[in-house]
């Protein structure tokens, strides 16, 4: 580096002292004494969800679902009014602990509902395990939450990352697809999904001939698609979500693989991505704990009510939010609104049978849903339910010790 003599800019010492002044100004506000609050008779419900960034729509769908479930039961929790507190977590893991503390320390919430992003969830887990505040997880599938880091006050109303793919292996082998290539992003959720697929596929008698991955959120699939074409497997199994998923299906079709090698995946591949993927998604097979087209009276009623209330079509995230709300209502009713009675509260929440739009589900010992996983196929831009891929599927909860 050829550094030119510097005689105009501030000296290094000036830069450092100015920076220190700025940082100092920021910390003073944190150290101000807390203003003591009068005990309110309201239940304090905290929502920590993404309201900006890639997952903003998921945050909105979840909040809609939570509010709808509580409103259906009279808008109260065990007879008490509700005071809402909201924090935008921006899906930023580096701010996870700080944002969770805003709700727990500053707002003194009785329950924290959140979040979507698994990395941010780790921050929430740290705070809820230390403070003992009830945490209901409306989406994040991070395995640790209901395995090694499980806790009596942490309940999941969504899924664990390996659940959809634990149901993927058998239907593939049943259709004679015995040699598969796996492809996903190389990050926690992708690895967890691979774990589920590996377990179910090898148990059913299939062989994974190659595991391909690319760094998250890279969407340049060309080299890997070339490799798939060369390997000629019976099928490809994958985990992708969001915009990257739409692009993967499009690139898969563009590479001429769509009609030669069937594409299977964890159901997030085809959630909210069908419009963007267009005809490239036709015929893609996936497994998930819900499908928009699920033909049950419960689901139809839910969808009609949600659409009428929010002028939006609900999706799997809205269902998970709705079930988080239902779970809270059941727990609060059981203790007549006295959320401080933790033993009775957790007991009630552990014993739930949630009457969900996805079908009835129960709580595993590690506080993860035991639920049916559906096999779906994309037909004319819709996930059509073919059947049940796995009945009452539970994650093992290995390594979970409730203390």
């Amino acid at each position, binding site marked *: 580096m050829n550094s030119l003599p510097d005689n*105009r800019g501030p000296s290094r010492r000036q830069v450092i002292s100015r920076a220190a002044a700025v940082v100092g100004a920021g910390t003073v506000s944190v150290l101000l004494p807390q203003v003591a609050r009068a005990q309110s008779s309201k239940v304090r419900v905290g929502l920590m969800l993404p309201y900006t960034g890639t997952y903003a729509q998921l945050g909105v769908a979840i909040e809609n679902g939570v509010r709808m479930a509580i409103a259906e039961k009279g808008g109260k929790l065990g007879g008490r009014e509700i005071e809402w507190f909201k924090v935008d977590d921006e899906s930023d893991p580096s701010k996870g602990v700080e944002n969770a503390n805003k709700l727990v320390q500053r707002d003194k919430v009785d329950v924290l509902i959140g979040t979507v992003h698994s990395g941010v969830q780790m921050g929430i887990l740290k705070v809820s395990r230390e403070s003992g505040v009830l945490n209901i997880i409306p989406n994040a599938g991070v395995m640790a939450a209901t395995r090694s880091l499980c806790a009596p006050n942490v309940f999941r109303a969504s899924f664990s990352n390996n659940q959809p793919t634990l149901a993927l292996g058998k239907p593939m082998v049943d259709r004679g697809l015995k040699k598969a290539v796996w492809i996903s992003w190389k990050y926690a959720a992708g690895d967890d999904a691979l774990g589920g697929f590996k377990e179910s596929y090898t148990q059913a008698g299939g062989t994974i001939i190659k595991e391909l991955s690319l760094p998250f959120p890279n969407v340049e699939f060309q*080299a890997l698609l070339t490799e798939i074409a060369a390997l*000629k497997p019976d099928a490809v199994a994958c985990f992708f979500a969001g915009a990257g998923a739409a692009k993967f299906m499009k690139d898969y079709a*563009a590479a001429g693989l769509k009609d030669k090698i069937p594409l299977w995946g964890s159901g997030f591949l085809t959630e909210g991505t069908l419009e963007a993927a267009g005809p490239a998604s036709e015929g893609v097979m996936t497994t998930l704990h819900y499908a928009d087209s699920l033909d049950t009276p419960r689901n139809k009623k839910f969808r009609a009510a949600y659409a009428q209330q929010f002028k939006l079509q609900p999706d799997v995230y809205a269902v998970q939010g709705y079930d988080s709300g239902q779970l809270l209502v059941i727990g609060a009713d059981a203790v007549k609104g006295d959320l401080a009675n933790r033993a009775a509260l957790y007991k009630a929440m552990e014993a739930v049978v949630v009457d969900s739009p996805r079908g009835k589900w129960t709580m595993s010992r590690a506080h993860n849903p035991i639920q049916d996983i559906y096999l779906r196929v994309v037909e004319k831009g819709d996930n059509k339910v073919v059947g049940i891929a796995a009945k009452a599927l539970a994650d093992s909860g290995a390594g979970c010790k409730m203390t």
Partner: protein
Amino acid sequence: MPTTAERSAVFYGFSSHLDDLVDFANFLIQLLNGVQYGLLLFMLAAGLTLIFGIMGVVNLAHGSFYMLGAYLAWSLSSHLGSFAAALVVGTALSVVFGLVLERVLFRHFYRRDHLDQVLLTLGLIYVFEESRSLLWGDDVHGVPIPPLLRGSLALTDTLSYPFYRLFTMAVCVALALGLYLLISKTRLGMKIRAGAFNRDMTEALGVNIKLIHAVVFALGVALAAVAGMIAAPLSSVYPNMGSPVLIMCFVVVVIGGIGSVRGALIAALLVGLVDTFGQVLLPQIASMLVYMLMAAVLLWKPEGLFRS
């Protein structure tokens, strides 16, 4: 319906010679994939290394120009209804953008400390990201491949190479050639080189060095933006897309030798090939390979492959 495996068994089973051909075709395609990625990186790294080599500016906001190009391609092609028109208008806009940016901000930083430049350009990343968010929102967008360039060149029954990727390679090669001719064969190129070598003496000889700098800066911005435009249909258009690209760019510049355009070309191709074959042959450590390559080169040649 026979499975793919059965069909290929019928097709290839009787001949190992054909098998070798398929393997070769596959290898060839991966080679093309690597070269294509490398050429795209070169377009970005060339601008970065030019701006550094000639004006001595460390520009961390270079990835933002790539993002700007991608968003321009998306926005213009949906408004104008033609990808070709979007390319032309987008290039013109990015040149103007580069000239304005140079005049308003960068001009005052040429003789400043590198730390000041880093602070300025780091701040610019945030400014560009927020502006992008206000102007174009935070959604992910796809840019359709223009109809003329759809489809692919079939090499065997299952292996083919998309025409659009061939097109991106052609554009990069043409620009690299143009850049080479400009710098080494024209009067302007001579003045650019002289200015980089000794700014004050060049100015004393009556060369308008301010204009030269403005042109070089705008050229660097335009190269990055054009790379973003032609990459848009391949990689889609999304927030923060400039950051990973910027890191790769710096890797290329460091491997190639700071300020050397030729070094950037060799290094970019090397990085492209290592990354592509790494993804296929060593998927477990693919994301680290490029950095391992960088470390290895720097151990061997601390200044990079070619010093300017």
